[in-house]
């Protein structure tokens, strides 16, 4: 489905990031996450994991999926962390700030593994190194 991506702080992401734990499994469990409206979630077959893709198809990321009442239909929420930012639209509308809230994305059930932050960097960004 196509959805509106909303990213934001969560206290646990904050705790782990400030505590220097970005490369830990705990951080992955906390932040490689997509919260969806229960109706959307069921319509997708209550998947364990979903693949979130940018609309241009250039970047995608696999994260754990959860149903959450706090999220409206057609929207998804991801904690502000590397997984969400892989699919955030880099366009800034001449403001310097990307569309961290309100980027359109594609969401689909997946069996792809969820990578931790370190492996994600190696997979996506290690090209030049």
């Amino acid at each position, binding site marked *: 489905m196509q959805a509106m991506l909303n990213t934001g702080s969560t206290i646990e992401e904050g705790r782990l990031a400030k505590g*220097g734990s970005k490369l830990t499994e705990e951080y992955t469990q906390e932040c490689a996450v997509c919260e969806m409206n229960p109706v959307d979630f069921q319509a997708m077959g209550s998947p364990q994991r979903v693949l979130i893709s940018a609309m241009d198809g250039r*970047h995608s990321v696999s994260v754990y999926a959860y149903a959450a009442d706090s999220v409206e239909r057609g929207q998804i929420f991801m904690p502000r962390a590397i997984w969400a*930012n892989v699919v955030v639209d880099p366009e*800034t509308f001449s403001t310097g700030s990307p569309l961290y809230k*309100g980027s359109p994305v594609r969401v689909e059930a997946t069996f792809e593994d969820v990578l931790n932050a370190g492996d994600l960097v190696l997979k996506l960004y290690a090209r*030049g190194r």
Partner: protein
Amino acid sequence: MMASKNIVCPVCGASCDDIQVELSGDKINVKNACKMGNAKFQEIVSSHRISQPLLREKGIVRPCPWEEAIERTAEILADASRPLIFMGSETSCEAMEVGLHLAEFLGAAVDSNSTVCHGPTAMGIQEAGRVGATAGQSKSRGDLAVYWGSNPLESMPRHMSRYAVYPRGYWTQRGRFDRTIITVDPRKSITAENSDLHIQLRPNTDYELLSALLVLLHGKRPHPSVEKVTGVSISQMEEMLELMKSCNFGSIYVGLGIASSYGKHRNAEAAFNLVKELNARTKFVIGALRGHCNVAGFNQIASYLYGFPFGLDFSRGYPRYNPGEYTAVDLLRERDVDCALIVSADLVSHFPAACAEYLAEIPVACIDIAPCPTTMISDVVLPGVIDAMECDGTFYRLDDVPIYFQPFTKSPFSNTKSNADTMKQIFEKVKALKR
């Protein structure tokens, strides 16, 4: 064991200055800090702390002597035709000042977290001005607080208790009972759940909602389509406006829901205009809820040193400013810089993929305290000193009040006293290379 009081927390924009710590050997006991604050204070004794400089050569990372890391960083900057210097917000104004001077010297672009945080809010100020107050005004007088696109219970846990909702101020002796709380958020956040009124607007319609409130304030009825656009009924808007007009002292705290969503600085501008107009009816102020501790500091010092709050370009020997052109995300996305020095910020995690990809292609040096995606792609990693714990300096709080912080211990490194010190060493070396 060493006990210290009145320590300033270096995590978020609240700059809480009442932290108590007891440090003994490899244990630290922290009082008054929130979850995030406590986690950062634990960093001082953590096992994963970056304890020595690292150098990447041909894909291999090795520890290296301090001097070599400084030298290599300086070479990266001196050899580039257009460097990007990124001064993250979790360090002092003193370090940022060196970063600005270094950028001026090199003719580089220099930016800070503000660019992806409340940069658009600052741009909104540039279009409208901003009617605000220091946090104590709301604490003593405020009887209405509006969290607009912000979620302090997750992003600034002590905001409600120290400044806005629970504190017993001079005219607010009953704390929470003296106050009405409104939250505007497309999501039923935990803050929204704890509010008296939750305006659940559709994403990317903040501008329309703010605009409609202004239209109502001016005695006109907004175009009826606004109900469908925002998902908020005009009667609900009227209810909200009535609460705002009838309070004695209202405060709006805008978050990234305003700055990061579609509309950006125009959302902020509309919010500022609303507050300006409300002051003809009652007292109203507005401020940004700043997630990072010294994100306001860069705005302040860059403004007084050079005239612009973020995203400065020095290529012509004088400061220039134009978000979208000289800002870090745009420069990286457009591949318009050819090296980067990143201080106390994790751009690889927090910038969109197109930017992170390019960072991985160009020479990068960074200063940080713990391993993170940015240290993973860096050619040089210099260990960071933790401000407010290991060195003194200045943070600007979310309301632009400067806070002087003093450390309770000293830098664990013999080669540097602070990030400002490290930056000065890099600058000296760059000057030597450019001479």
